[in-house]
């Protein structure tokens, strides 16, 4: 057994070095190669590592980056899986790379972002100390089939994590219901009141009680199906959170200022990213930090200084053009991006890149569940929309039907030409790509402008 582990680790490290030498990312293939030799390699590599897992539909990467900063500032010796390699192959690769040739861990702690379906095995093999479930939204229904399947996958992962303290989003009726299926210690977090004065029109992914299927009533909704829900029929309702945002003081196009109540003690916090969804990510990160016994002050400080994961609103200059890249994946996430983009105060150019590869979700119907109509209300402040990616034609058509004047919509499928086009004008640029489009764009931008490669 020991020999198999050593060989697998060796293969993994060699494969990764080779692929990196060729200038590619190498996040999943090394793990896949290693598992051919030792299929449950992760179990061996994780045995002496204390693992923290972050899973859920939206917010995994941003919350992980917040936690990464917190762990760094707290002096914890850890490693994490960057660049969104959150399937079994990617996680296995990360553990192997952070182990010696004999499979001994180089760092005692691991912060792991896990895909919801992959969590079933990742939980089983790593036996985590703490698991965070951010939320459950519709996403990649071509992979998951239905929202209840996503929830079920997470439930199985939690059943496979008997020693974990589990942090759950109280405001998500689907996530909160997980409490009933597991004997683990549960810590709830949430937001104690509405965030937006006005919200985009959006469908709820969970309008009916998960237990008795009666329609929920809400005292308030923060967005989507999140809020203070109650079922008048069976009484299932939002549990009281242990840690909650007690006040939203400011939430604008660049950041939020909030008050967080941690078991009775109030803290002021600044979150360096805009949007209600990042408020949830912030309070989630503080909850995990508190559960791990880290300093709440340190966790709160990290919300202001952390480096957001690539494509999660990262800001960079391309020549003289101010650019922000924001990953879009599903209606809920995209609607939240629009919640604040619909309120921009200066003339801006939007770029949307829609791919339909496996990692993006092969069914692009979801773009019709996003309230792009709010962009037509932005009026002249929206100087134009450039559309790219494999399914650019569908995306351009969506904007036409959303009421954007046809002359403002331009399809440019070639990424070099696309970048030339938006860097040759002066307005700030917001780029919204799906996952694989983001990877492609990032690679080209890195080469052209010498930005650090995404795996660093």
């Amino acid at each position, binding site marked *: 057994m020991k020999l198999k582990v050593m060989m697998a680790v060796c293969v993994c490290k060699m494969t990764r070095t080779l692929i990196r030498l060729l200038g590619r990312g190498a996040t999943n293939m090394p793990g896949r190669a290693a598992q051919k030799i030792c299929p449950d390699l992760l179990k061996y590599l994780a045995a002496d590592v204390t693992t923290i897992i972050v899973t859920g539909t939206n917010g995994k990467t941003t919350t992980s980056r917040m936690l990464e900063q917190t762990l760094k500032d707290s002096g914890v010796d850890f490693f994490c899986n960057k660049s969104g390699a959150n399937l079994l192959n990617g996680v296995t690769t990360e553990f192997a790379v952070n182990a010696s040739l004999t499979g001994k861990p180089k760092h005692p702690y691991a912060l792991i972002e896990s895909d919801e379906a992959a969590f079933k095995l990742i939980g089983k093999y790593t036996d985590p100390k703490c698991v965070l479930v951010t939320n459950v939204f*519709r996403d990649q*229904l*071509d992979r998951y*089939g*239905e*929202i*209840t399947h996503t929830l079920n996958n997470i439930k199985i992962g939690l059943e496979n994590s008997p020693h974990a303290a589990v942090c759950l989003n109280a405001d998500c009726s689907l996530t909160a219901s997980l409490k009933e299926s597991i004997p683990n210690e549960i810590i709830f977090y949430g937001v104690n009141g509405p965030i937006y004065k006005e919200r985009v029109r959006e*469908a*709820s992914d969970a*309008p*009916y009680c998960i237990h008795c*299927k009666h*329609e929920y009533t809400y005292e308030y909704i923060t967005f989507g199906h999140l809020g203070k829900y109650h079922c008048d029929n069976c009484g299932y309702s939002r549990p009281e959170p242990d840690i909650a945002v007690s006040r939203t003081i400011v939430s604008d196009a660049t950041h939020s200022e909030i008050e967080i109540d941690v078991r009775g003690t109030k803290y002021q916090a600044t979150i360096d990213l805009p949007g209600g969804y990042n408020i949830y990510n912030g309070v989630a990160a503080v909850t995990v930090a508190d559960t791990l016994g880290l300093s709440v002050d340190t966790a709160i400080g990290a919300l202001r200084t952390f480096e957001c994961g690539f494509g999660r609103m990262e800001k960079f200059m391309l020549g003289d053009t101010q650019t922000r890249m924001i990953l879009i994946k599903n209606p809920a996430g995209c609607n939240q991006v629009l919640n604040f983009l619909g309120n921009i105060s200066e003339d801006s150019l939007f770029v949307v890149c829609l791919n339909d590869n496996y990692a993006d979700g*092969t*069914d*692009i*119907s*979801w*773009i*019709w*569940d996003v309230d792009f109509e709010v962009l037509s209300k932005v009026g002249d402040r929206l100087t134009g929309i450039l559309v790219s990616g494999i*399914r650019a*034609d*569908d995306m*351009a*058509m*969506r904007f*036409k*039907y*959303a009421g954007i*004047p*046809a*002359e403002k*919509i*331009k*399809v440019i499928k070639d990424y070099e030409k696309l970048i030339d086009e938006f860097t040759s004008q002066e307005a700030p640029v917001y780029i919204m790509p799906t996952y694989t489009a983001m990877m492609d764009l990032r690679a080209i931008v890195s080469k052209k402008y010498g930005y650090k490669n995404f795996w660093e």
Partner: protein
Amino acid sequence: MQSGRQMSTADTARTGMSLNICHLYPDILNLYGDNGNIICMKQRLQWRGIDCSVSGLSVGDRLNAADYDIFFIGGGQDFEQDVLLDDAEKNKKADILSAIDDEKVFLAICGGYQILGNYYRTWDGQQMDFMGCIDISTEGVKERMIGNYMFTCDDLGGETIVGFENHSGKTYLGSGVKPIGRVLAGYGNNGEDGTEGAHYKNVYASYSHGSMLPKNPKFCDLLLSRALEKKYGRVVLEELDDVFENNAHDYMQKRLSSR
């Protein structure tokens, strides 16, 4: 690139015509972007100066079919289906049957398609009785039929419809029901007999998400023409500049043809 016509609010009523759309169960059967069909119909009417209202009717609402010209039912997840089946039987079925008989236009997608039919039988033999408004029935199987697909539209002289299917039910058409067309790529109704969708009187039902109508503008216009004809007598719909729609359609048609 040619620009589409921008309609001013004064234009929207210039023809004096209007269509009322009934969106059934918009809060439950709304999982796969099917709302795009409503957006498409409404825009294509308003761009032609035809007024359009959309009313959502869900569980507990009584349906008065005479108020509407077009009915739309989308797809959803199994979890919520039985919430609405009881309501469909009690509050909707009678009016739906009379509207179908009266040749009102229906568009039903995926789950909506299935519940208009006779029943759904799961792979382990359990049968759920549905509304029985059109003579089709569905057998559940374990493997899902998922992917981009393409089929002909017989009513459009064989023009192709491109969409995305995602279903584990195999639907079979009864004797009085025609398919919308024949499958050119993908599975269609059941992956066996080469048919896709159902067409009965002015009911059109399909497994196509995408959404179905936006990049199949001729099919959308077919539905709108039928509804207008029923209400006002023969109507010739003004042609629209469909560059965006045709590009989106043709890209997928090319991609699916080269397999």
